[in-house]
């Protein structure tokens, strides 16, 4: 969450029957050809449970893989995404600051809704010339008919007065001319560009919550990552859309694999210290490192359980790198794995807090495994190649990870992001555009994945929808790696 600032007032909130779509969602993996892919649709009907059904003989076992294994999300196909029109907000005062703040607000709101995966934004080129800033100004007929053919309309006004920024925003169901008002909000804060961004994020999240089946939007979430732009690899943070990139650690060494706690108060990471690789803990509230015990050996890849009560990490304190659990203060240490071959990169099932996925080199090249939180029932998930960086989807049913499926002399293959259904071990390839793609991390709404890609020439942070679409680059300066999406 972005630290709260300013005030927020609800002017109208109507859990309108047709507005809040039933609280369910489905993710379906099918094999599609190119033409189908372009017209695939997304539905938010179904259940909060993500059901994974594989149609056609795609990806059964280790049969030939094809780069055409695109993901189609939705169950009740044929139900189109809500068409939402979002005209620019109107200035509510004559303050000269308005223009710049309006641009920031409008761009942020548009992007938040565009990448949400929940609505289809109507192109601004179809909008009528008359744009409303206040409810009395709404002409529903101008919006619900062609060319815009919108189902919903988000509009409002923004203005600065006496150093204070105020935004009023509304969501209207323009197909319901009787009672179109769904949502009205007013935000107020000391005027600044950052405040304009926060207000846009909050408003976008309100819309997404209503149109996205009751799941919280991610517009105020944070991404933590590693950047070397200062000359050393340090831990950085940024808004989920790439704004507000800021340095967190100043250790001047090599700091890697940040993982923020579920409550957003601390970031665990690994750092090269005088006594070797240590797990370190940084308090975002106190703005400094807090103590974590020296474990001995090489300590890497800390991971939080979904309830914040446990940490898992890799440690070679007992000889070779193995998976351990501990409580967040480093006490209550338990060793979970004993196999020869490095064990690293554990991640918890945040839904049950009782399973861990991890990487093991016990058979040679690294593979993905799962096990119970006490180390029992270790199961191998990948069947070949080089598989690393597992990340468990919020619904507990999918793993995302990085995979080079083909390995061998002269055939380095490509490192791409994959999704796998844990129950069936069926998998789908998500990235297809070249580069080395690694370190996928799920957004809390389960709809987005942030990852590292070298497709632009060097390692940068990118996001995409969990079906591989809406790929966006977030970082551009230095080398940026190992992203981790916050939990809220």
């Amino acid at each position, binding site marked *: 969450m972005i630290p709260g600032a300013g005030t927020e007032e609800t002017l109208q909130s109507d859990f309108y029957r047709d507005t809040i779509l039933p609280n369910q969602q489905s993710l379906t993996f099918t094999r599609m050809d190119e033409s189908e892919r372009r017209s695939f649709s997304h539905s938010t009907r179904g259940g909060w449970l993500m059901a994974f059904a594989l149609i056609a003989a795609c990806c059964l076992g280790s049969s030939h893989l094809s780069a055409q294994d695109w993901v189609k999300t939705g169950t009740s196909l044929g139900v189109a995404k809500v068409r939402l029109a979002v005209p620019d907000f109107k200035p509510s005062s004559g303050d000269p600051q308005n223009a710049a703040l309006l641009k920031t607000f409008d761009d942020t709101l548009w992007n938040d809704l565009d990448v949400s995966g929940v609505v289809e934004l109507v192109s601004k080129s179809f909008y009528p010339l008359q744009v409303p800033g206040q409810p009395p100004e709404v002409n529903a007929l101008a919006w619900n008919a062609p060319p815009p053919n919108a189902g919903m309309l988000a509009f409002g006004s923004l203005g600065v007065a006496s150093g204070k920024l105020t935004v009023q925003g509304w969501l209207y169901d323009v197909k319901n001319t009787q009672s179109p008002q769904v949502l009205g909000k007013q935000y107020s804060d000391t005027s600044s560009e950052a405040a304009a961004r926060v207000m846009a994020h909050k408003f976008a999240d309100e819309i997404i919550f209503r149109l996205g089946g009751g799941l919280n939007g991610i517009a105020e979430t944070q991404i933590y990552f590693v950047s070397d732009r200062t000359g050393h690899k340090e831990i950085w943070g940024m808004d989920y859309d790439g704004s507000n990139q800021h340095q967190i650690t100043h250790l001047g060494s*090599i700091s890697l694999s940040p993982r923020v706690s579920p409550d957003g108060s601390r970031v665990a990471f*690994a750092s*090269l210290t005088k006594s070797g690789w240590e797990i370190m803990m940084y308090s975002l509230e106190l703005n400094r490192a807090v103590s974590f015990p020296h474990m001995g050996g090489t300590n890497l890849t800390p991971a939080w359980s979904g309830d914040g009560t446990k940490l898992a990490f890799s440690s*070679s304190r007992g000889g070779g790198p193995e998976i351990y659990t501990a409580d967040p203060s480093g006490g209550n240490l338990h060793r979970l794995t004993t196999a020869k071959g490095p064990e690293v990169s554990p991640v918890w099932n945040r839904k049950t807090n009782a399973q861990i996925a991890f990487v093991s080199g016990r058979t040679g090249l690294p593979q993905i495994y799962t096990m119970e939180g006490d180390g029992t029932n270790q199961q191998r998930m990948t069947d070949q190649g080089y598989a690393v960086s597992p990340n468990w989807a919020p619904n507990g049913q999918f793993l995302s990870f990085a995979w080079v499926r083909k390995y061998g002399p002269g055939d380095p293959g490509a490192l791409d992001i994959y999704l796998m259904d844990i129950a069936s071990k069926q998998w789908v390839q998500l990235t297809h555009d070249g580069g080395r793609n*690694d370190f996928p991390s799920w957004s809390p709404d389960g709809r987005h994945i942030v990852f590292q890609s070298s497709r632009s020439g060097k390692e940068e942070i990118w996001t995409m929808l969990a079906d591989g679409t809406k790929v966006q680059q977030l970082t551009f300066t230095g080398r940026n790696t190992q992203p981790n999406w916050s939990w809220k």
Partner: protein
Amino acid sequence: MNQKSMKWFLLIIALSAILMLGACKKKATPPPPPPPPPPPAPTASISVSPNTIQAGQSASLTWQTSNATDVSIDGIGAVQPNGSQSVNPTDSITYHLTAKGSGGSQEATARLTVTQAPPPPPTTSVSDEDLFSQNIKDVYFDYDKSDVRGDQQSSVQSDVQFLTQHGNMNITVEGHCDERGSTDYNLALGDQRAAAVKNALSSGGISASRIKTISYGKEKPFCTESNEACWQQNRRGHLVYQK
């Protein structure tokens, strides 16, 4: 002078003359018979050139005598009345020549100072760290592997030998990986590589307490080209002198 002083002066002269003559006359002995001329005394001289040498060098000893029939130099023995000789004593010495003849004997000396050779210039002592880097061999690994290859055993043995000979040296083994592969997995793999080298050295008899390990994964490569030659360079246990 006036007439009166002149008279006095002449009187004193006369009196002095009478006294002196009288004295002389008193000492005078009756003239002895002329003695037969004595045999001439021997002369001797000796010199050494140069008169300062360094140990190991030679000098030339030269002497001259006359009226001598028996000439000897201490430490050398009887020598010709005139001559020269090369000498190369190891210590300072005084050459003592004795020349004897019917007229007596005469001695002469010459001093030869022998300075010790200057100490040899100190050889530049090779530092332990230089010795280490000249002799220690790194251990190279196959892709994704952390076991010590057969063809690396000789390097391990050589390192064991060197570290045994230099029991005062301690080392750190760094585990490195090539650029392919993921950051975190490579750190773990590097950890295993460093441990493997440490184990191999311990098996050879080097005390484990002399060996620290650290993994750098692919974070500190030795080269950055994307080809097998460079990748092999990076897949190694790198031994570092612990100061």
